[in-house]
C-alpha cells in the first residue's frame, strides 16, 4: 500500500474520534444509572438477535405469607415441628414452627404475615418437635437414635429465652393434644408404654401399653384417643392394626403387607398390598364396612378433620403405586407430586381441593398434614426440603387478608 493511503486512513480515524469526543463534551450528560461511556443513547432495541441476560431464579423461593392464594409456603428453612396457636379465646390464631437444626421457635401472624422469633434458645440438631395449641409449651427432639434427647420448653411471653428441661428415657414417638398436654411412647420391657405429660401440673399418666417394640403410633387429638397402632410398615412383612381408646385395645379388621393407617373416632383409612397391588381402603366403624377407597394414597399423607370425623384430607399422587410401597417412599427413593383431596369415608367420595403444581408450579411431596383451629387451615411439610406450607381449607371470615 502507498504511504499516502495510510496517512489518509489515520487522519480519518483521528477525525472520527475527535467528533465523538466533541459530541460527549457538548451533549453528553452524566447518567446516574451508569457510566457516560456506556450510554450511547442508541435507543432501545427490539432486535431478536440481542441476548438479554436473565437473572437466575433465586434458589430459595420467595415466601409471601399474606398472598391471597389459598396455598402458600410459610418457610424457606426446614421445620422440625409446627402448630396453629391461639393464646386466648379472643386472640387471632397464629402459625408457630420450630426451626430444624436450631430449635428456635417462630410465630407468624396470619393476618399481617409478620414473623417473630419467640425463642432464641438454641437446641442443636433439633429434628422433631410439637407445640401445644395454647402456645405455652414445646417438646423438642435433639439428635436421633440412642443419643437423642427430648426437652420440654416453656415459651416465655416476655423474653426470647426458652426455659427447658430434659425428659429422661428414650422416646420413640410424641405428639401434642388439643388439651395442651404431650403424649409420648417409651420402651418398656419388650414393648412400649404410652404416657401423657401435663406441663401445667408437671404430672405423668400412663395411657396404654403396646406389646411390641417396632410400633408406629398414629396419635389421636386427645389423650383418650382413639390412637391407632401398627408395626412399622414394610411391604415384605405383615402388619396389623390396633386402636386404643381410653386405654382399651381393640384389634381392628385390617391387616396386610405394607400396612399403615390413619384414623378418627368414625373410622380409619389404611393401605396395604392385596392381590399384588398397593391399594387403599376405608373402614366405617359405625357400619363395620370396609370399602375400597376411590383413590390410592399413603395414609401418612392423610388427616381427618376435627369438625367431621368421617372426612379426611389426603395428599394423593395420581399414579400407579408399585407393590413395594411404601418402602421406597420411606427411603426417599420415590418422590411424589401430590394434590390435596377431600375424602369422605361415609359417602366413599373424593374431590380435588387443589393441585400445588398447577397453582405454584412446584411439585410437593406432602407429609405431616395437621389442621389448625376449627379446621380453617391445613398445615403440612414438603418432604423434599421440610419446608412448612399452609392451605386455607375453609374460608375464614374473621381474617382480614391483606392484598385482597
Amino acid at each position, binding site marked *: 500500500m502507498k504511504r499516502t493511503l495510510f496517512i489518509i486512513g489515520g487522519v480519518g480515524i483521528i477525525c472520527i474520534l475527535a467528533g465523538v469526543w466533541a459530541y460527549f463534551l457538548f451533549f453528553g450528560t452524566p447518567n446516574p444509572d451508569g457510566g457516560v461511556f456506556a450510554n450511547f443513547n442508541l435507543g432501545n432495541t427490539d432486535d431478536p438477535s440481542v441476548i438479554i441476560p436473565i437473572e437466575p431464579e433465586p434458589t430459595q423461593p420467595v415466601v409471601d405469607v399474606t398472598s391471597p392464594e389459598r396455598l402458600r409456603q410459610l418457610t424457606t428453612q426446614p421445620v422440625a415441628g409446627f402448630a396453629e396457636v391461639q393464646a386466648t379465646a379472643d386472640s387471632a390464631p397464629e402459625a408457630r414452627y420450630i426451626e430444624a437444626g*436450631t430449635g428456635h421457635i417462630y410465630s407468624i401472624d396470619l393476618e399481617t404475615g409478620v414473623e417473630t422469633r419467640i425463642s432464641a434458645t438454641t437446641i442443636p440438631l433439633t429434628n422433631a418437635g410439637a407445640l401445644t395449641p395454647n402456645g405455652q409449651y414445646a417438646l423438642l427432639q435433639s439428635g436421633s437414635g440412642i443419643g437423642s434427647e427430648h426437652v420440654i420448653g416453656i415459651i416465655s411471653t416476655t423474653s426470647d429465652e426458652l426455659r427447658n428441661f430434659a425428659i429422661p428415657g428414650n422416646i420413640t414417638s410424641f405428639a401434642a393434644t388439643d388439651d395442651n398436654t404431650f403424649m409420648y411412647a417409651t420402651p418398656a420391657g419388650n414393648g412400649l408404654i404410652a404416657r401423657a405429660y401435663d406441663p401445667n401440673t408437671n404430672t405423668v399418666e400412663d395411657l396404654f401399653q403396646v406389646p411390641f417394640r417396632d410400633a408406629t403410633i398414629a396419635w389421636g387429638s386427645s389423650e383418650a384417643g382413639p390412637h391407632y397402632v401398627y408395626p412399622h410398615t414394610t411391604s415384605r412383612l*405383615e402388619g396389623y392394626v390396633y386402636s386404643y381408646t381410653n386405654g382399651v*385395645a381393640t384389634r381392628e379388621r385390617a391387616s396386610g403387607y405394607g400396612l399403615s393407617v390413619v384414623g378418627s373416632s368414625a373410622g380409619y383409612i389404611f393401605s396395604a398390598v392385596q392381590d399384588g397391588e398397593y391399594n387403599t381402603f376405608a373402614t366405617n366403624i359405625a357400619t363395620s364396612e370396609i370399602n375400597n377407597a376411590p383413590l390410592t394414597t399413603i395414609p401418612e399423607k392423610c388427616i381427618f378433620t376435627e369438625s367431621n370425623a368421617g372426612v379426611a384430607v389426603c395428599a394423593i399422587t395420581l399414579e400407579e403405586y408399585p407393590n413395594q410401597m*411404601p418402602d421406597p417412599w420411606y427411603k426417599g427413593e420415590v418422590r411424589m407430586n401430590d394434590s390435596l383431596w377431600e375424602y369422605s369415608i361415609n359417602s366413599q367420595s373424593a374431590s380435588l381441593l387443589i393441585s400445588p403444581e398447577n397453582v405454584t408450579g412446584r411439585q410437593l411431596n406432602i407429609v405431616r398434614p395437621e389442621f389448625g383451629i376449627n379446621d380453617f387451615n391445613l398445615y403440612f411439610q414438603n*418432604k423434599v426440603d421440610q419446608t412448612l406450607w399452609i392451605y386455607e381449607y375453609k374460608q375464614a371470615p374473621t381474617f382480614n387478608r391483606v392484598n385482597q
Partner: protein
Amino acid sequence: MRLRVLLIALIILFPSAVVTAQFDASQFGQTPQLAITLNPNNPSPGELVTASLDDYSGGVYGSEITWFYDGQVISGATNQRQIQFVAGDAGTDTAVEATLSLPTGGTQTLQEIISPVYMDIIIEPQTRVPDWYAGRALPSLGSQINTTVLLNDGSFIDPQNVVYTWRVNNKVIEGGPIRAGNRVAFPTPRGGAVTVSVTATDPAGETIASRAVSVGIVLPELSFYEKHTLYGMKSSPITANTPLVGSILTLQAEPFFLDSRVYNNPDVAEWEINSVSTDNGSSNPYEITLRSSSGNRSTNVNFHVRSLQQILQGSEESIAINF
C-alpha cells in the same frame, strides 16, 4: 364222618369269626364318623371358612341336609355337602349346624361352634435401619429375629394361660411347647425365606389358633445420604444426578438391614476415594467428609462394610460425587 366235617368247618371258620369281631367297632362303643369339619380349623375374624359334612358311615345317604348359621337357615345350601361363610367378630361364638332328615324318618343334628380368634405374628428383625426411616427392618442371614404372637378374642388373651409351640422351617424350637412363651428369638437361617409357624393351645391341649407366615430374607443394602451439620441427614439418598452445593460434603453410608451387631462392631469398614483406601478421619466409621479440589470435580467414593465371621453380612457400594 359227620363229626370230622364239623370239626374241620369249625377250625376253618372260628378264626375268621374272631377277626370279624375285632373290626366291629360298635361293640367297643365307637360311633361311625359323621361330623362337620372346618377349614381352617380355627378361623380368624372375617376369614372365609369352608364347612364340610364328613360321612364315613354312609348314614347321610338319602338324607335331606339343611344348614344353619347362627340359628338361621342358609338359603341355597340345602342338600349341599359343603358350605362357605365368613367368620364373625372376635369374641363371638357362632353355631354352624347341619340337620339331616333321614329317609327312614327322624332327624340328626351336627354342630360346630366357631370362636374366631386373631393370631398376629409380629416379626421384629434386629437389623439396622436409620432412626428417621419409618419402615421396619428386614431380616438378613444370621441376624436375630424377635417374634411375638398376640392372640385376641375381643381383647388380648393373657399369654400366661396359653401354651405355644413354635416351629422355624418346620423344626420345633425352644425344645418343645412352652407355656407363656409368646415371644421367641432365633437366628435367620439360610435361604430365600423362612417359615415361622406357631400353635397356641390352652393348658388342656385344646387348640386356640394356629398360623404360619413366610418371611423373606434380604441382603443388606447400602445407600449414601448427605449429612448436614445442623439439620442431620437428608431424607433422600444421593444419586449421580443429585445436585451438590458447596465444596464440602459429609457423606453418611447407611447399610440397611445389616445385622445390628455387625453394624455396631464391623470387622471391615473401609472407605475408598478414586480406588485409594482412605482414613475417614472420624470416630463414626459410616461417615466421611469430602472437600472438592480444583480441577477434579468428579470423585468416585466407595464404602465397604462386612463381618468376617458371617461373610454375607455386609455390603459394598460406590457412588460418583460431582461437586
